């Protein structure tokens, strides 16, 4: 496989960033993930995943506006790169292909 390996948590983070379309930064992503997946997600885990994804070139970031509640500190806003999007797409394609080859689909389709 040519593309970089993506862990399950990384995939969720990457997807969340894609979903949030420009408004994605540490705290917001953390809250979004814990709402959507009902997991207890820690800020440091999210930060670590973001850093790794950026290293892999699937995310890019720039500094945003400072806000008062952040003590005047800027946030780092993440967006998905083309490579990131393609990777997500590839994962989705692989899954879709596999799902179509399932002879007896499960009755009530379970989510992720």
């Amino acid at each position, binding site marked *: 496989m040519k593309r970089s390996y993506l862990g399950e948590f990384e995939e969720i983070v990457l997807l969340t960033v894609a979903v949030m379309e420009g408004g994605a*930064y*540490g*705290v917001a992503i*953390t*809250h979004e993930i814990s709402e959507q997946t009902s997991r207890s997600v*820690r*800020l*440091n*885990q999210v*930060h*670590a995943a973001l*850093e*790794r994804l950026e290293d892999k070139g699937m995310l890019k970031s720039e*500094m945003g506006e*400072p*806000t008062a*509640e*952040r*003590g005047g*500190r*800027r*946030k*780092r806003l993440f967006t998905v790169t083309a490579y990131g999007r393609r990777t997500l797409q590839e994962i989705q394609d692989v899954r879709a292909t596999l799902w179509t080859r399932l002879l007896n689909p499960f009755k009530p389709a379970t989510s992720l």
Partner: protein
Amino acid sequence: MKPPRLADRLLQLFCAPHRLEEVQGDMHEEFAWQVKRLGYRRARWRYWREVLGFLKPPAGWPFAVKRKPYSTTNQLTTSMIRNYLKIAFRNLVRNKTFSAVNMLGLALGMACSLLIMLWVQDERSVDAFHANKNQLYRIYMREFFSGKLQGVIWTPGPLAEELKKSIPEIQYSTPYEWVSDQTFSVGTKINKQATNTVGPDFFKMFSFKLLQGTPEAALKDRNGLAISRSMAEVFFGSPEAAMGKPIRFDNRTDLRVTAVFENLPPNSTLKFDCLRNWDAYVADGNDWAKGWDSTDPLTFFMLRADADPAKVAAKIRHLLDKFNRDGNKPFHTELAMQPFHEYYLNSTFKNAEIDGGRIEYVRLFSFVAVFILLIACINFMNLATARSAKRAKEVGVRKVVGAMRSILIGQFVGEAMLLTAFSVVLAVLFVGLTLPVFNSLTDKQITLPFDSLSSWAILVGLTLVTGLIAGSYPAFFLSSLNPIRILKGTLKFDAKSTWLRQGLVVFQFSLSILLMVGMIIIYRQVEYVQTKNLGYDRENLIYFPLEGDLGKNFDILNRELLQIPSVKNVSHMTASPASNGAGTEGISWAGSDPNDKVRFTPVSVGYDFVKTMNIRLREGRDYSKEFGADSSGYLINEAALKVIGYKHPIGQTINWGGRKGTIIGVLNDFHFQSLHTTIRPLIAHLNTRQRSGNVIVRIEAGKTAEALAQIETVCKKLNPTFPFTYSFTDQEYARQYQSEQVVSKLSTYFAFLAIFISCLGLFGLATFTAEQRTKEIGVRKVLGASVANIVGLLSQDFLKLVAIAIVIASPVAWWAMSQWLQGFAYQITIEWWVFAVAGSLAVLIALLTVSFQSIKAALMNPVRSLRSE
């Protein structure tokens, strides 16, 4: 509502700096949200948990472990280091003269400092090898005589025993007499050996290794004798064979070898071939040693390990009061103590307290070592800053490419270290080559201590310190340059840097002139001491001990010696002509104050004493066989006459220890001690039955060898059991100034070295200036300047600096040298021409150095220097 401060701090400390802002921002935002959700208290807890989560990430997680530096280019990779080294080497090779001047200067300076360091270390190691070093002390007394309080190292004979008896903290003690050459014989083997007398505790106190015998039994017996390995080898063949054997002492007493000790190390101040038992010595006609009035031996003692020296010092202070040795004097003799190992370097008294001594030379030379090293470092700094114009472009490019200032400083300091390291190697080589000469000069046996770790540490330390000092200024200066200005070519070296460079040259030359003035004055004082008219004629005056049968047969000896054609006069005296340190207080005269007795130096002499010594008589006459009553006549010197105060001294009476006598002559003052002390009152009396002391013989000039041969035959005939040994008075006299002579020679060498190193620096600087001003010189020549004009132009800048140095150094040198001369009772005056000579020498040498370069620059064809534009 703020997150916990401590947790925040922790985060700042451990988070990667380039991520801190967003992480901390997120944390704060989260905190604010959690406060709304859970309340302040629980939010704080959560915050702590989050921060700790950032602190203990598993491997590979970004925060707290993986920290990226701000700069993205790493400047200490191996390839960069290789580049720094390459550039350093290229610079060394490209400027061969500069590099050579630099390294030679540094190496010479360091070699000089290393030599001095070795010497200082050796001086400090003297007497420091005793295992009980910190418990060993020696006694000195504070006595009141001649109206003054004086420190005295001679102590009464019974003192050692008394100390042990009355002060429980004192474990061992021993008297230590003065070494004298005594004749020993075993069978037909006869030899003179340096002999001394000590108490039975001696070997328990001092760590002299015993090859045979035990410290307890070594000197317990009255007829016991402890001998050195070499003495054992001379008499018995080996230490083992010597043990327990009889040996004849002075051809009158039979002793037995009870111990053999290893030959004494060179760094021991106690020097002897053999040791006798103290009690036997006292019983052997030295009754004075039983009383408290006479003083002669040194006294050493050893404290118990747990004793407090301060308490002991307080206890011994008034120990002598109970013996009432001072009568009704206003002051009672006090005892004081000094650590034994300090006594070599600290032995002179000032106001009856120990104050300095040889330590002053050690300090002086330590200063000189630092100075010379400093001069060499200044050379380095000077040349490096002078060359900075050439390195400036490199600095500019490096800065533009992203070098930080600290990296540049590191580079230049590193280059300095590299050069210093080469110089250290060179310096060690120099030291190795000059050490034999240095040893013979200072009369030492110093070796390069390659086997000790500390000496390597010193070498590494020297490299680091020198490299740091020498490299610091150029490094800071070069790294501070503005890259834009450098690369634009508009960089001008401002007045500040030349000012500093000139200041360094002035400093350097001040030090050199200081050393030079010191050298001249020390040399002249030593010369003065050696040639001063002592009041007697020390040339062609030999003396030999009056020992064995010579005393008994002195009349025959006298007669036979006078028959030798090259012998002019013969007499005898106690002590030696060059050095007489004895003292007596038992002299009174009409009108003398019984409570304040003056200390006289006594001497017992034979007939024709004045004639033999060639002392001028102020009044009266010499002892002569033609006068009958001479045994009750006294000779005194002018100093004594001044104390006594008689107007017409001849025929007046003097009372010496109960013996009344008349003054038969007054001698002109003559120096019977070294010139460090003033001439003391002297009293001489005739003792024709003298059995000890020296025979003094005046021989004809130029016939020394034959006179000596004939004197020896006479002595051999009259005194066959004793080997004939003799001394020349002038040589013995010169020996008293050995340390001054060494200092004189060393200061000469060091002064020239300092000047030489300074000139190396000046040479480099002149080269640089000439190079910088090539165009200016070209233009001047085109416009019609003569060679002389240009040489003058280039030289005067430097001469100005040397002139300033002379002005600064002269008063300092004057002050320092007057301090040194204080140590002599008879001294030269510091004359103005000394400074003139030192100054003009400095100017001359500087001029020679500079003119070499400036003439070269002035002779250059202007076409060549102006073409290149």
